[in-house]
C-alpha cells in the first residue's frame, strides 16, 4: 500500500473541505462511524454540529443553505438515521434547496440481505432527491461528492443523497480531488433567446395593466438587483409569493404585497384584472392560483423560468422566457419602455386600504383583550435589524408572521413553503444562525410545531446559537382549527392541546426564557429578547381562536379572496 493512500472516511471529509463546506449537521451511528472518526482529525477545518435528531440535522442544513446560498451538508447513519432524513429531503426538493446528504450504509457484501440497519435508502429517497447514488468502492467516493455538490447547487438547486457503504469508508484509496464542472446529460445554463425577450417586451409595452409576480427563483438566481432595476424602469406593480419574500424590499414603490391563500387582498384579487401577467421564478403553486379554471384567464402570461418542466405545467403561457431570471430580467429591462401606471396602481392602493381597515389594523393594533399574533410581529418589526432573518414553522403563525414581517433584504425568509413541514422552524433557525452568529435570527413557531422538534433546544444549548425563539401559543393546532371552524361546523376534532410549561422546558435547556400574557408586557419583552446576548425563548400567549385573513378558500378563485 502506498503512503499516499488514505481511508475512504478521510476522503469523505477531505472532499467536503475541498468543496468549501464549513459546517455540517449530523448524527452518528454504526454505518457512518468511520466518517465520524475521520471528523475527529479535521475538526479545525470542518465544524460538525450534533443535532438531537436526524430530521433536525437536515432542517438545520436547509436553514443554513437558505440564508447562505451555499450547499447545506448533513450526515447520518444507515437505516433509521437515513429514513429520518426523508422529510427534510422532500422539503428541500419541493423548495429547491441545495443539500448534500451523506448516509452510511452496511458493508457492500451485506447489501440486499436485510442486514442490521440496512434500508434501501437510495430507493426510498429517489422521489425526494434531485439526484442520489450509492457508493460501494473507495475510489468512487470523491467523484460522487464532487458530482453531488455540482448537481445540488447548479441549475435549479435541490437535495442530493450519497449513500456510502461501510467498507468503502474503511478501505484505502488515493485522494486527488477534482471539482465537477459539468457533464453531458445535465444542462445547467440555458441562454436566453432574443426572440422571446422581444415578444415579451412587445406584450409589456402594449399593456395597460401589466402585473409581475415573483418567486424564489429570483433569490436562487441572485437576480434581486435585476428585478429591482426592471421594476424601477417599467413601473409595473409586483407581488411576492411566500418564498419570494425578501427578493424585493417591501419599501419599494412598486411592491403591492403578497400572493396566495393568506396573501394580501389586492394582489390576489387583481390577478384577474391585469392584462399581462409576468411570472418570474415562480411555479404557480395551487396555494397561489386557487381555482385554476378561473385564474388570470383574461391575461397574456409571460413566464420567466429556468426549469423547462415548469413551462406550461400549470398555467399556459403566451411567451416562455427560458433561462436564469438574472439574465432574462436584465435583457427585458433593456427592451421595455419607461412607464408608470398610476390608475392601475391606485386600484391596488384602494383595495389595500380596505384590507388595512378590516384586517390589518385589528391585527396589529387590537382593541380586544387577547393578544394577537399580528401585534407580536409588529413589535418585532420595531426592534429588528434590517437584515434580521425570519424563520417560521407551519400554521397560522407562519402566515401571520409572513404577512406582517417587514422584509428588506434577500435571504431573510426561511420557511417550509411547498411541503409545509411542521417542526421545520426550530432546527432551520439553528442552521441559519450557525451561518452567522452576528445576524438576528428570529424563529416564530407554534405550540404544535415546536413540539415536533423541540429536542433541538439541546443543540441550541450546546452550540450557544443566539436564536430568538418566539412561541405563539394559542393552545391549538390553530390552522387546522380555523378550517374546522370555517368548513367543518366548528367540530374541533383533536386540535386542542394540553401543553407543557414551555418556559420551564427552555430553562431546563439553560435558555433564558420569558412568558408574556399581557399586552402591556409585550414590547419590553421583545426588546429584551432582541438585545439579549445568546439564545432566548419568548412564549406569547395569544388569542385561542383568532383566524387568519384574507383567505382564498379551497376551490375558490383568486377574486373570491375574503376579508373575513
Amino acid at each position, binding site marked *: 500500500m502506498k503512503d499516499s493512500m488514505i481511508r475512504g472516511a478521510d476522503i469523505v471529509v477531505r472532499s467536503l473541505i475541498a468543496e468549501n463546506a464549513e459546517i455540517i449537521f449530523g448524527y452518528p451511528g454504526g454505518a457512518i462511524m468511520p466518517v465520524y472518526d475521520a471528523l475527529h482529525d479535521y475538526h479545525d477545518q470542518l465544524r460538525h454540529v450534533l443535532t438531537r435528531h436526524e430530521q433536525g440535522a437536515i432542517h438545520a442544513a436547509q436553514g443554513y443553505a437558505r440564508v447562505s446560498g451555499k450547499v447545506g451538508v448533513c450526515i447520518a447513519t444507515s437505516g433509521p438515521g437515513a429514513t429520518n432524513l426523508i422529510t427534510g429531503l422532500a422539503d428541500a426538493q419541493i423548495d429547491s434547496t441545495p443539500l448534500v446528504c451523506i448516509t452510511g450504509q452496511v458493508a457492500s457484501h451485506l447489501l440486499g440481505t436485510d442486514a442490521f440497519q440496512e434500508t434501501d435508502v*437510495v*430507493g426510498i429517497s*429517489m*422521489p425526494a432527491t*434531485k*439526484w*442520489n447514488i*450509492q457508493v460501494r468502492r473507495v475510489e468512487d467516493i470523491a467523484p460522487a461528492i464532487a458530482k453531488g455538490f455540482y*448537481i445540488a447547487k447548479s441549475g435549479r438547486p435541490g437535495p442530493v443523497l450519497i449513500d456510502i457503504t461501510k467498507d468503502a469508508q474503511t478501505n484505502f484509496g488515493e485522494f486527488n480531488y477534482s471539482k465537477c464542472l459539468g457533464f*453531458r*446529460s*445535465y444542462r445547467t445554463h440555458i441562454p436566453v433567446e432574443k426572440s422571446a425577450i422581444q415578444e415579451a417586451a412587445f406584450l409589456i409595452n402594449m399593456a395597460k395593466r401589466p402585473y409581475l409576480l415573483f418567486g424564489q427563483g429570483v433569490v436562487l438566481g441572485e437576480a434581486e438587483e435585476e428585478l429591482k432595476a426592471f421594476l424601477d424602469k417599467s413601473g409595473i406593480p409586483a407581488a411576492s409569493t411566500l418564498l419570494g419574500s425578501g427578493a424585493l424590499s417591501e419599501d419599494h414603490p412598486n411592491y403591492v404585497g403578497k400572493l396566495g391563500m393568506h396573501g394580501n387582498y389586492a394582489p390576489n384579487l387583481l390577478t384577474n384584472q391585469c392584462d399581462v401577467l409576468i411570472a418570474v421564478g415562480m411555479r404557480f403553486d395551487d396555494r397561489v392560483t386557487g381555482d385554476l379554471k378561473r385564474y388570470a384567464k383574461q391575461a397574456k402570461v409571460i413566464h420567466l423560468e429556468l*426549469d*423547462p*418542466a415548469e*413551462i*406550461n*405545467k400549470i398555467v399556459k403561457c403566451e411567451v416562455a422566457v427560458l433561462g436564469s431570471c438574472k439574465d432574462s430580467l436584465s435583457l427585458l429591462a433593456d427592451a421595455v419602455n419607461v412607464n408608470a401606471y398610476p390608475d392601475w396602481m391606485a386600484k391596488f392602493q384602494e383595495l389595500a386600504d380596505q384590507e388595512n381597515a378590516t384586517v390589518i389594523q385589528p391585527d396589529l393594533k387590537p382593541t380586544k383583550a387577547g393578544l394577537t399574533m399580528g401585534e407580536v410581529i409588529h413589535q418585532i418589526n420595531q426592534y429588528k435589524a434590517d437584515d434580521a432573518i425570519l424563520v417560521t414553522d407551519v400554521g397560522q403563525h407562519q402566515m401571520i408572521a409572513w404577512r406582517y414581517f417587514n422584509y428588506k433584504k434577500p435571504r431573510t425568509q426561511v420557511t417550509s413553503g411547498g411541503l409545509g413541514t411542521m417542526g421545520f422552524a426550530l432546527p432551520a433557525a439553528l442552521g441559519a444562525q450557525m451561518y452567522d452568529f452576528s445576524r438576528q435570527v428570529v424563529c416564530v413557531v407554534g405550540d404544535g410545531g415546536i413540539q415536533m422538534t423541540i429536542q433541538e433546544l439541546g443543540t441550541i444549548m450546546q452550540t450557544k446559537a443566539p436564536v430568538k425563539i418566539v412561541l405563539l401559543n394559542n393552545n391549538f393546532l390553530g390552522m387546522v382549527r380555523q378550517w374546522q371552524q370555517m368548513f367543518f361546523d366548528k367540530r374541533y376534532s383533536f386540535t386542542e392541546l394540553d401543553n407543557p410549561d414551555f418556559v420551564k422546558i427552555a430553562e431546563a435547556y439553560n435558555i433564558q426564557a420569558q412568558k408574556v400574557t399581557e399586552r402591556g408586557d409585550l414590547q419590553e419583552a421583545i426588546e429584551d429578547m432582541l438585545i439579549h446576548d445568546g439564545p432566548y425563548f419568548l412564549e406569547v400567549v395569544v388569542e385561542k381562536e383568532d383566524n387568519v385573513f384574507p383567505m382564498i378558500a379551497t376551490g375558490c378563485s383568486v377574486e373570491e379572496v375574503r376579508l373575513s
Partner: protein
Amino acid sequence: MKRYTIFVITENFIGILNRITIIFTRRGINIDALTASESRLEGIHRITIEVTASEDTVIQLVNQIEKIIDVIKAFYHEDESVVYQEIALYKIPVSRLDGGLEKIIRQHNAKIIAAEPDFVVLELTGHKEQTQELLEILKGYGLLEFARSGRVAVAKRMLTIDSFVK
C-alpha cells in the same frame, strides 16, 4: 387519449429506470410497454416507452423525464411518426397442429421457431393489432403460453443520437 411512444436517451446509470417509472406511477399513468437496450453509442442506453394518454400529459411526462440528471434527451412521437415492431411468441400443443393451423401460420407470416415433442413455438413480428389477431385465433387451438415484447422503435425523423450527446 392517444398512443404515444416516448424515447429516452440516457446514461447507463443504476436506478435510472426506477427514476423514470416513478414519474408515471406518481401521476397514476400506466406504462403500456417498455423496452430498454443499448444504443449505437457505448455507455448510452435507449428506453422506449409506450403510453396511452393525452398529448398534454405526454409533454409533462417528457419534461419530467428530461429533468432527470442522467437522462440525456427525452422526446415523444405519435404512432404515425415512428417505425416500430413487437415480437410475440405462442406455444401450441403438437396435438393441435393440423392443416387448418398450418394455413393460419402461413396467412399471418408466422414462423415455427421451435418444435418439441409436446409443443411448438410460433413467432410473429409486427404491430400489436397483428399479434393480437393471431392470439385470438390461437386461443381456439389450445394456446399454452403467450408472450409479447414491448415496442422497439425508431423515429422517422432524420435526427441521430449523436446530435444529443455532446
